[in-house]
């Protein structure tokens, strides 16, 4: 019994945790990566002055929020210019990648920019959100969605000369089963074994149906193809010198200063005209933690590209462009939404009036404004951004938006309730601990929220900052229940992958007890950090992986979002705006193609793909 929940938990953990705690990244970000990845924007709610008259300021803030462009993402469109070989690019990143082992080291947005230059994945995502071929040429499943067979690209070589074939994946799986990052994904995806059917055909056998399994092979954690012999030979060294099939190979690694990768002359992909990729000679990655400096480096020509997850920097970049800087701005928000959660298992957060009340007093627009993100970050209302195929207008409307009075009234109801769950006397203030990692934007955001909540006169807010590790540990808690000792805890939700990859793990039963109560023995998730469970919602989530009909799944996920809007276990403070800025003669970051000619997803979460990037003459 212990083993079974272990198997279920671990993956849930990895995925939800990773996707959640780190900065806007695709499914493989690990929480233990660099400290500066969070650019959370807290939900803003309008607040009025203590007097009864409605101040003009209120209107201003409302305006700022509602007039934010509906879709700030840069359009993904195919490259029309003619490509040319040669050139070197230097890109400024937000942080250094502490390790480059896709299955073992945490990797969020800045790290992925580096890793994906050397490590290819099995599948890639298309601009329309579907998954398409990359190292896997095609795939199919059996009727019950428990066996997935992949045909592999042939003639692919690793940087060290080894051949990529079915056996590679089998050997990789041995490492992925126990990898710090990948073990969780293996469990979430319920992969039981990987079988080589023939030289270029491999079968993933799942222990449970999952209609969207290929999406798990998009993230580098499970889908990143690394050379298993090299990994086994020098496990630690692989972190500094990863061997993959990617368009570039590791050349020099000077931690915290510069990492350089050079062209892989044996890259398996060619462009539509038969020219072998990549076009560039080399790419240099420079971790520049200071936001201003990273932008300066681009503007002054010291670097040719930069990446950021901070609204303030995006605003400065836009201003620079308006002033005449010759740069291209590739903005992306995506589903990743900053915010926080309540620990639904302890008082007073176990009462929906408190959760909803606090959320209604939270002014997302004000917080976004405080962080300088007005017009850059969109307020969040669900786990999908407006341009995601899963976005639901209904859910957006249902989310308890900023309404200070209504929130205050709800809190008053709780405070005056003689049976209030925190056991305090009628009229006593509610005690809230608001905790965020010591990220500069989060620290600002939490001060704004503290003011908003305190202004109601019914909340005593205590602010704390713990380093990211501790922050996560507080939310995690300890065995056997893993309830966590957090109260109101900064967090991030969602990713751009298939919703099942993060939702199912996030909202499985939080404790064994609850699981047993619903007859779901053994199915529990310690990484259900909010400790929130709704049996109906769980049913919808399970249903969504038993079918691959889009309309059916959409309807189910919409109901899930509506349920979240009703029960408010989490709150939002704006989608994570990301930016890749480049000198305007650098093309191919936007509009790269998959091997089957379809348009790729561009640059989600500011992760650039380097294979088709070129410098225009």
């Amino acid at each position, binding site marked *: 019994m212990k083993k079974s929940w272990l198997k279920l938990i671990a993956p849930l953990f990895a995925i939800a945790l990773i996707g959640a705690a780190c900065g806007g990244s695709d499914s493989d970000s690990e929480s233990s990566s660099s400290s500066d990845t969070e650019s959370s924007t807290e939900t803003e709610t309008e607040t009025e002055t203590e007097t009864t008259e409605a101040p003009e*300021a209120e209107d201003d803030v409302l305006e700022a929020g509602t007039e934010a462009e509906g879709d700030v993402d840069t359009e993904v469109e195919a490259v029309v210019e003619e490509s040319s070989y040669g050139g070197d690019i230097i890109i400024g990143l937000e942080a250094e990648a502490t390790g480059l082992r896709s299955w073992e080291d945490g990797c969020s947005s800045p790290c992925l920019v580096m890793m994906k230059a050397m490590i290819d994945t099995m599948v890639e995502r298309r601009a329309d959100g579907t998954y398409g071929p990359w190292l896997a040429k095609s795939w199919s499943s059996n009727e019950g969605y428990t066996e997935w067979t992949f045909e592999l690209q042939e003639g692919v070589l690793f940087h060290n000369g080894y051949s990529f074939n079915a056996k590679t994946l089998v050997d990789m799986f041995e490492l992925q089963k126990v990898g710090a990052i990948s073990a969780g994904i293996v469990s979430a995806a319920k992969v039981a074994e990987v079988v080589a059917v023939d030289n270029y055909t491999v079968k993933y056998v799942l222990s449970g149906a999952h209609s969207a399994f290929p999406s798990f092979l998009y993230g580098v954690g499970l889908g990143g193809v690394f050379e298993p012999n090299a990994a086994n030979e020098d496990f630690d060294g692989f972190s500094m010198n990863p061997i993959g099939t990617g368009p570039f190979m590791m050349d020099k690694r000077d931690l915290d200063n510069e990492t350089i990768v050079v062209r892989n002359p044996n890259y398996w992909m060619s462009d539509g005209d038969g020219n072998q990729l990549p076009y560039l000679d080399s790419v240099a990655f420079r971790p520049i933690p200071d936001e201003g400096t990273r932008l300066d480096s681009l503007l002054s020509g010291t670097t040719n590209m930069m990446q950021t997850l901070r609204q303030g920097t995006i605003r400065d970049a836009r201003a620079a462009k308006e002033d005449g800087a010759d740069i291209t701005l590739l903005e992306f928000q995506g589903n990743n939404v900053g915010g926080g959660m309540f620990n639904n298992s302890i008082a007073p957060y176990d009462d929906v009036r408190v959760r909803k009340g606090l959320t209604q007093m939270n002014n997302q627009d004000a917080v976004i404004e405080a962080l300088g993100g007005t017009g850059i970050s969109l307020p969040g209302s669900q786990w999908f951004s407006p341009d995601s195929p899963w976005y639901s207008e209904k859910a957006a409307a249902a989310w308890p938006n900023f309404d200070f009075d209504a929130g205050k009234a709800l809190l008053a109801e709780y405070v005056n309730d003689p049976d209030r769950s925190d056991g305090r006397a009628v009229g006593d203030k509610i005690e809230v601990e608001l905790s965020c990692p010591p990220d500069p934007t989060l620290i600002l955001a939490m*001060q704004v929220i503290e003011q908003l909540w305190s202004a109601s006169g019914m909340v005593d807010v205590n602010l704390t*900052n713990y380093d990211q590790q501790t922050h996560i540990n507080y939310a995690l808690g300890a065995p056997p229940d893993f309830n966590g000792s957090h109260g109101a805890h900064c967090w991030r939700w969602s990713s751009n992958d298939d919703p099942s990859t993060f939702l199912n793990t996030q909202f499985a039963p939080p404790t064994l007890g609850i699981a047993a109560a619903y007859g779901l023995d053994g199915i529990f998730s310690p990484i259900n950090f909010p400790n929130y469970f709704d049996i109906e919602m769980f049913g919808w989530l399970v249903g969504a992986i038993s079918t691959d009909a889009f309309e059916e799944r959409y309807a189910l996920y919409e109901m899930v979002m509506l349920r979240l809007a009703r029960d408010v276990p989490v709150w939002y403070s704006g989608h994570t705006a990301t930016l890749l800025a480049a000198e305007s003669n650098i093309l191919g970051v936007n509009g790269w193609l998959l091997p089957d000619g379809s348009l790729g997803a561009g640059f989600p979460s500011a992760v650039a793909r380097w294979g088709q990037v070129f410098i225009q003459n």
Partner: protein
Amino acid sequence: MSESKDITGSPDANRPLGVDRGLHGTPHSNPTPAASNGNGRLSAVKEMPFLVKCALFWLIFIVFAAIYTRLDRLFGQALPLQDPFYQGFLFGGASPVEGPSLDHVLGTDILSRDNLSRLLHGAWVSLIVAITVISFGIVFGGLLGAFVGYARGRWETLVMAIMDVVLAFPPLVLLLALVAIYKVRSLPVIALVFGVLSVPTYVRIARANTLGVASREFVQAAEAIGTKRVWILFREIIPNILPSLFAYALINAGFVIVIEGTLSYLGLSVQVPEPTWGNMINEGRRDIRRTILPIFWPASFLTLTVVSLNMLGDWFQQRVAIRSSSL
């Protein structure tokens, strides 16, 4: 606590001839006329050069401002002073990073809170740290140093060895490690840690001065007539070493205020939303391209306070030197 030990001009008896010739008052270094009878403290103030008077005035202003803000808090914001936590852009009344105006004399910060009020509230943190360090240093350090300087022997070796160990840690590194490991965020604890780390230099100064005083005729005379040593310690020795301890304390206070500013700049001091000069500078950095004002105010307050302490300390040292040299 002195990162540079003797560099800030404290005498060090471990150095055979003392590197103290420079700052520690040979009459040569003092261009103003020597010899004062220095009777009342008021006459001392009258003798101050104009700039030193300004420094004193600034320090008094800071102390009063800090106390005023705490009284204001005690009385629930009743006194005339803006709320340092009130974010105008939320509730009306201000917008972020405003310039000086009638309502907000020094403008607002990035969360549209009144700068002046935050500066004055932040003064309290610096004040508490400075006072704690001075008190700890003079009381514990002074006593300990005087004791071992007079008693000599094994006690002296032991205590000085311990002081060596504490001084061996680069203070900033040690503080960072402590704060990070123990996550201290409360002002009393932080001030206490500063205090403890400062003690060794006070001990050294006290000991050095005690060695000097103990060899003086009046002490030897007292010993000769059989006065109890404890009595000598408290009646003869300590009053004579206090002035130079105090002179050092002023300079040490400035140094410690800078260290606290550094810690809070890194976000490792008292918890937000408490304003401190250091974290105000940190918050101001985000918009540095557009305006230097949010940084300028806290930086100025910090610098002016430290300058004042240094000037006062220097002046005091000169007086101490003159007095002791004219004995």
